[in-house]
Every structure is written in C-alpha cells, then in structure tokens.
C-alpha cells in the first residue's frame, strides 16, 4: 500500500458544503449548512440530540440514501466533485469511510473483516491482502494485540478492540476521510482514550470528522468544532476559540451546560 503524504491544510478544503438542506419527508433535518472542512484535521460536530449532527455526518457519504423519504438539496463537494452528481456511491464510500457508535465487526475472523473491503475492490492475491491487513491493523494501533489471533472471530475481543478493528477495516480501502459517529460512547474510559489518540495520529493522513456528545472529547482532540442546533450550524470555528470564548450565546449556553 502506498504511503499517503500529509495533506496541506491550507489547500482546498476536503469538503466544501454549500447551502445543504436535508429533508426526511416533510421534516427538514438540516437547514442551509455551509461549511468548509479542511484536510488533515479533526473536525468535531456537537449539539443536543436531534440537532442534525449525525444526519450531517451521514450525508457526507450518502448513508441517508438508504433512508426512505430522505432528500438532500444543495452541494457537497469532495475535493471539488459533487458527491450527489459526480460520484457513484461505491467510490464515494471507498473514499469516505465510517465508524459507528456500536463497534460492528462482521461475524467473521479479524483477518476477513479487514480484507473484506479490499476483496470487494478486487484484490485477491494472498500476499497483498496479508500486507493490507497488517498495515491497516497497525495504523489502527491494534496489530500487537491481535496479530496472534487473526483467524479468530472479531467478536471475541473487547469493545474497544472491536472498535479499532472497525477503524482498521475502514482504513483497509485507503479512504481520504473517516467519519466517526460517536465512536467511543459505548467504550470504557481507557478504550476511549486509545481511540482518541488514534484519531489524533490518523489525522496526519486522513481527514477525521467526528460526532460526539462528549464535549471534553471534542475539546481534547479536534482542531475545529461545529455546534448544531435544530438543523442549523450555530457556530463553526477553531476548537480553542469555541471552548474558550464562543461567539454565539447559544454555543456558550450549550458547552457550559446551561442549555435547556
């Protein structure tokens, strides 16, 4: 697998979102979202339940296509290409991987979990798959823990390890972007910190977008934070500024816990 070079954050944004509206039937879940998301950084999305942050994340690799009645308007450009018109969903999801709240390894061996994506993309050669599996597991900081049990079920390891296997599985198809939807909410504090360290390590080569209910997590690891409320982006900026001196009163109320 070729090493990617670290993207230049000053370059064109990885994602450019313009006037994005998203509807579930009559319900408008996202309202005129405009946002540039740079490469090589961790961008966190925070906000109360139902604010649209997960919907927004899922729109970025068109997971909402699977939802009946879901309809997006506006543009989402990935490296300048419109993900709704100019890309097929398979190649979009190859470039934009996703990790979910509950670790969801496939009920198969650790090896097969990681090799699953590359096999679908046509890689059959054993030595090549071996190399991808090892490298992906190493990148996900789990190789040393599972290298002697690659043929055993991925369901037989701890939740934190399963989540890192899922991250390795996402990395195996060489994405540019990894979407993480509350990736640590089902994990204990130590596993959480391992995933956080991993995200910080991975941002050198990938853009990481993370939805989290844990504001300390957003402040610990992200470079930028967006605060969503009722489908709108209330504030988006450097994480340091957001947590030290937010510009919007609603952001202040939310992050200091005076919300509601």
């Amino acid at each position, binding site marked *: 697998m070729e090493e990617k070079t670290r993207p230049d954050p000053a370059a064109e944004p990885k994602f450019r979102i313009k006037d994005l509206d998203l509807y579930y039937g009559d319900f408008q879940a996202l309202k005129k979202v405009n946002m540039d998301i740079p490469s090589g950084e961790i961008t966190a999305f925070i906000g109360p339940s139902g604010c649209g942050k997960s919907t927004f994340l899922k729109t970025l690799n068109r997971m909402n296509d699977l939802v009946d009645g879901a309809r997006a308007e506006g543009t989402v450009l990935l490296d300048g290409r419109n993900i709704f018109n100019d890309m097929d969903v398979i190649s979009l999801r190859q470039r934009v991987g996703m990790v979910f709240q509950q670790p969801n390894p496939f009920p198969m061996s650790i090896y097969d979990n990681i090799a699953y994506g590359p096999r679908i993309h046509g890689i059959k050669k054993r030595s090549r798959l071996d190399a991808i599996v090892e490298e992906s597991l190493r990148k996900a900081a789990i190789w040393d823990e599972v290298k002697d049990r690659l043929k055993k079920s991925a369901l037989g390891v701890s939740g934190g390890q399963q989540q890192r296997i899922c991250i390795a599985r996402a990395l195996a198809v060489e994405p540019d972007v990894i979407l993480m939807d509350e990736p640590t909410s089902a994990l204990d504090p130590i596993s959480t910190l391992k995933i956080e360290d991993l995200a910080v390590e991975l941002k050198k080569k990938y853009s990481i977008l993370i939805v989290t209910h844990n*504001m300390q997590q957003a402040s610990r690891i992200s470079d930028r934070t967006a605060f969503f409320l009722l489908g709108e982006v209330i504030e988006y900026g450097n994480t340091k500024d957001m947590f*030290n001196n937010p510009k919007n009163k609603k952001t202040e109320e939310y*992050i200091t816990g*005076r919300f509601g």
Partner: protein
Amino acid sequence: MPTRQVYLEELAKLKSDVIKMGSLLEDSLGEVIAALENLDAPKAERIIREDDRIDEMERLIEDECINLIAKQQPVATDLRQIASVMRIISDIERMADHCSDIAEFIIRISGENLPLPEHIRDMVNDSTDMVSLVIEAYVREDLSKADQVLNEDKTVDQYAKDITDELLIAMKHNPDKIRSYTDYIMIINHLERLADHCTNIAQWVRFIVTGELSI
C-alpha cells in the same frame, strides 16, 4: 430546575467568597488609613494579625477553584471566571501583604513624632478607592469601571513620585530623621505596588468579559 444547579451554586459561592475576601482587604485598608493618620501602633498590629484571615481565604478559594475544575470541567466564560479568580485572589493576598508591610513601618515610625508627608492621605484614599472600584468591576463584570481603575493608577503613580521627591527634600533638611523618612518612602512604595495589583485585577475582569488577555 435549571441544568447543572449544583455547579451554578458552586460558581455563585466562588464569586461571593471572592467578594468576602475583597471586603476583608477593604477593612484592612481602612485600618491602614486610621493607623497612619495617628501613627497608631496597636491598630497597625491588628492589621498584621488580620492578614492571616486573608491568607486563609486565599487557600479556601483556591481549593474551590481546583475542585470546580476537577469535578465540573468548566469551559468558556466559566473557565475564564475560575482561571481569573485564581489570579485575582493572589493579587488580593499580595495587597493584604502590602497592608501588613505598611503596618510594620507604621509601628517603626510611631514613636518618632514626624508630620505626615503632604498628599500621603490622598494617595492612601485613592488606593482604597481603586480597591473598591476594582472589586465592584469584578462583581458587576463592568469594563468601564475596570478602565477607570487603570486610569486611577496613573494618579497614584504620580502621587508616589511627588511624595518621594518631597521626602527626599525633607531628608536633606533633617538628616537625623533619614531612617524614618526612608520608612515613609517604603510605605509609598507599598501603596504604589498595591495600586498595581488593582490594575492586574482590572485586566482579569477584562479577560472574564471579553476573553482578551492583555496581562
């Protein structure tokens, strides 16, 4: 019931404790004025004893701040408030030390029967006003009062310079009293430093309100 009721109560208590500590300092300064007026040694000794209470308040409030940070992970205005309080109480504690130092010099001068230098009362009054003003600026998070404190400091600095000049001239005329005059100069220096701590607090008030750090 609003969210984070306990947290909000703890933040409110923190503020009221800072105000209490500020009032103790104002009391000490009031005593300094009275002790200086009559070069009253017993009153000066009381000021020195009072300093322990202010030190104790500093430890108590510092503890509250550390607990709030550890238990509540404050952010934004709350974090700026708590970080500033940790600095403000250290400024108040230093100001109380200056009162104590001034009291020691008052005890030394008390037997000397020297006239008070002109304007020293004005300087003490202005410094006391600065303390009251800056505590009010903190309580109300009032930037215009904080700016007033910064301006007042210039007046106090000018008093310090004028009174020192006056004392140097007096020393020339009364060389046998040089030691006592030097003690007055030390008192002036302490007052001047005390006013500087007020300006520090004014800057922390600005930080709490705006998030801009100019210290």
